[in-house]
């Protein structure tokens, strides 16, 4: 009787949902964005709401990670590779009705690279020497040296085009050029956006979309189950995903992210300045156990700092295969038995759970670890800026970021002149084949130097109502592009 009632209620509920939600969607997100200005903060949650929905750049990431035209319909590169000329689309206007033209592009780029700029990815604009509006629909950007990555740089959320008149209020009421306009933000609960009827491209299928913020895995699960949330693109608790897989109402979208999850080591201080110790640690780690234990099976083992879905990826997992005996031998060889290391863990589950597993694995080869859990702010201060750590676990989610190994002052303090030269060459190389070869060399170099222990590529495990299509599978950048999302019934 009770069961019958429950089922009937569930059916009624679902029917009601389907009818009422034809062109609206509720998207679940674990973290609330602190503000909605993608040019003024690093929080991934900002891009997850506004990228490609409210704000657009000259170029953009496609669902497969490719660089596609956005506000610039096309661009040309000069022979020496230092001058980019972008042609803007005609008839693009901001949500407040004002036209978007070359002056806005000049303003946006100059603002981002200005001396007092607070752009979180200021490095993206570092090579720019001049930005000019040739005519209202043409912009010329001059670089100090050739940069094959420049269109890629311009696709980032931090490089979106904004209007001078409205940028000050972007933190709370963002005004962009995208297919959705900002409607409301109930702090602590949700952000709602609505269809931009004057969009320059094809108008989206959805009339409104609501991003609801649910930090707690349980609550997220319950909200999905109750139908309060239609899609949770990055589901916070992998251990619950199997429940959704068993339920025909839902589809589980498993994709890849740009997040290389690594056990970072402080290369500059003893005993981790000894490559043998680092190698030993790499061999002591059983990646599959970490993926199973911490991520409930979601994740791809990696052997270097490169995304496996990238065509230039080299599988180097065998270089640092799980071999505790070898690890012990290496430690003995390095004269580093009875090590005790500090393991600093930032808040994400992969780090906290992974840290416990790694601690247990290191103990097996005779390395004791002292775990300290840190909040992000503390982690940034102590580990990232202060470099006061031995080991830490973190996922580097920026796309194509192997170049961080060329920065000797970067927190893991890898200092290899050859590698730095290689990355410098790579930056100015625009021939795809040459770039591929150099990428491979870079991957191998850091793998053979055992700079860090490479664990796994962070999976993007999303859960969605089975009747929704058009969602991104992978996460080439942190975004929830809703342009092509629609209900199938």
């Amino acid at each position, binding site marked *: 009787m009770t069961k019958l009632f429950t089922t009937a209620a569930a059916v009624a509920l679902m029917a009601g949902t389907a009818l009422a939600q034809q062109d609206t969607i509720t998207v679940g997100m674990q973290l609330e964005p602190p503000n909605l200005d993608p040019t003024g903060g690093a929080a991934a949650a900002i891009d997850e709401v506004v990228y490609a929905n409210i704000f657009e750049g000259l170029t953009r990431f496609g669902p497969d990670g490719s660089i596609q035209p956005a506000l610039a319909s096309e661009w040309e590169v000069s022979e020496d590779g230092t001058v980019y000329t972008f042609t803007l689309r005609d008839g693009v206007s901001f949500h407040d009705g004002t036209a978007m033209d070359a002056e806005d592009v000049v303003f946006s780029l100059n603002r981002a690279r200005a001396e007092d700029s*607070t752009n979180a990815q200021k490095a993206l604009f570092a090579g720019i020497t001049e930005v000019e509006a040739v005519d209202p629909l043409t912009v010329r950007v001059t670089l100090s040296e050739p940069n094959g990555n420049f269109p890629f740089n311009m696709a980032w959320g931090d490089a979106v085009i904004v209007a001078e008149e409205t940028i000050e209020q972007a933190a709370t009421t963002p005004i962009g050029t995208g297919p959705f306009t900002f409607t409301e933000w109930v702090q602590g609960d949700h952000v709602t956006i609505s269809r931009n009827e004057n969009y320059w491209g094809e108008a989206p299928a959805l009339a409104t979309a609501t991003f609801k913020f649910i930090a*707690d895995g349980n609550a997220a699960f*319950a909200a999905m189950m109750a139908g309060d949330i239609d899609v949770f693109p990055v589901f916070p608790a992998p251990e619950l995903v199997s429940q959704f897989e068993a339920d025909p109402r839902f589809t589980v979208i498993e994709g890849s992210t740009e997040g290389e999850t690594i056990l970072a080591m402080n290369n500059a201080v003893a005993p981790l300045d000894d490559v043998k110790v680092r190698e030993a640690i790499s061999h002591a780690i059983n990646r599959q156990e970490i993926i199973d234990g911490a991520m409930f099976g979601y994740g791809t083992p990696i052997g270097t700092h490169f995304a496996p879905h990238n065509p230039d990826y080299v599988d180097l997992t065998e270089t640092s295969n799980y071999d505790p005996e070898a690890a012990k031998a290496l430690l003995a060889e390095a004269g580093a038995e009875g090590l005790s290391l500090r393991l600093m863990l930032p808040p994400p589950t992969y780090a906290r759970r992974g840290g416990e597993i790694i601690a247990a694995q290191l103990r097996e080869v005779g390395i004791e670890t002292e775990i300290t859990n840190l909040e992000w*702010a503390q982690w940034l201060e102590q580990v*990232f800026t202060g470099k006061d750590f031995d080991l830490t676990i973190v996922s580097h989610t920026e796309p194509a970021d192997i170049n961080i190994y060329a920065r000797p002052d970067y927190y893991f303090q890898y200092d290899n002149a050859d590698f730095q030269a290689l990355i410098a060459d790579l930056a100015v190389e625009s021939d795809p084949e040459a770039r591929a070869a150099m990428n491979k060399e870079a991957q191998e170099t850091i793998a053979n130097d055992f700079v860090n222990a490479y664990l796994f590529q962070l999976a993007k495990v999303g859960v969605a109502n089975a009747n929704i299509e058009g969602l991104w599978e992978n996460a080439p950048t942190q975004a929830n592009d809703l342009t092509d999302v629609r209900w199938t019934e």
Partner: protein
Amino acid sequence: MLRFALTRFVSLTLSLLIASLVIFAVIEVIPGDPARYMLGINASEDAVAALREQLGLNDSLALRYLDWLGGMLTGDFGLSYTYKVPVSELVMQRLWVSLPLALYALALSTLIAIPVGLIAAARRGSAADYSIMGATQLGIAVPNFWFAMLLVLIFAVTLRWFSAGGFPGWDAGFWLGVKSLTLPAFALALPQASILARVMRSALIETLGEDYIRTARAKGLSRRQATVRHALRNAMIPVLTIIGLQFSFLLAGAIIIENVFYLPGLGRLIFQGITQRDLIVVESLVMLLVFAVILVTFLVDVAYAAVDPRLRRGR
């Protein structure tokens, strides 16, 4: 009465001033740079420096303290670092969740506890008394966040009577709002009601042993009449104290429950403020909560006077 109020006011101000110093000092020594937190892992040093300058983090401590204090006196709590909106706006928004939740939980706890405590005291030693006391012992021992988890499991996931959490906003309709606060309010109220019922019972038993109850009985009042007409009001004094304490607790102490039900309340705002190093939000909120507690204590004192004529004239 005026003199009483004046004296209280002076000591209240002094307490608040000391509290503000303590809060400011504690929060300023929290490691972690808000600017770097906001700009993240790839930010360049000069961007961070520029943001620090913009946020006013480079001013001297004393200057910032005075600035903050002066702002609060004029009702200006400053601008949130991360949200970039006035703190007062943030707080007001959250208050419309936390305050109703606290009041709801308090009402539940009081409505449950007072009759239950009354029955237990009136039937002292009976089976009803023993079961009530046993149940309240259990109620006190249950961690409220665990109880909340169980409530979600039963009422949201299995029975689907309530949504698992979230708050649609009062705009979505009054009853919808009340509904979404119901499970959290119950989770909060259970231990509070247990404590209150026990206090009610023991206060009542104590009063029932007083001489004036015997006097009342000698006048011909039945046991029930003596309890209702004479014991109840006297027993309310300790009960009021607990209710006052509970209110303050519920206002600020709901952090965990707010997390379980993902309610956008004050507690969560503090938690977020701390993780995001939005120091100005944290400082102002803690200050506000301390102020609320001190105010409630004051109101409870006034309520005493209403209940007990002995306290009405000064000291």
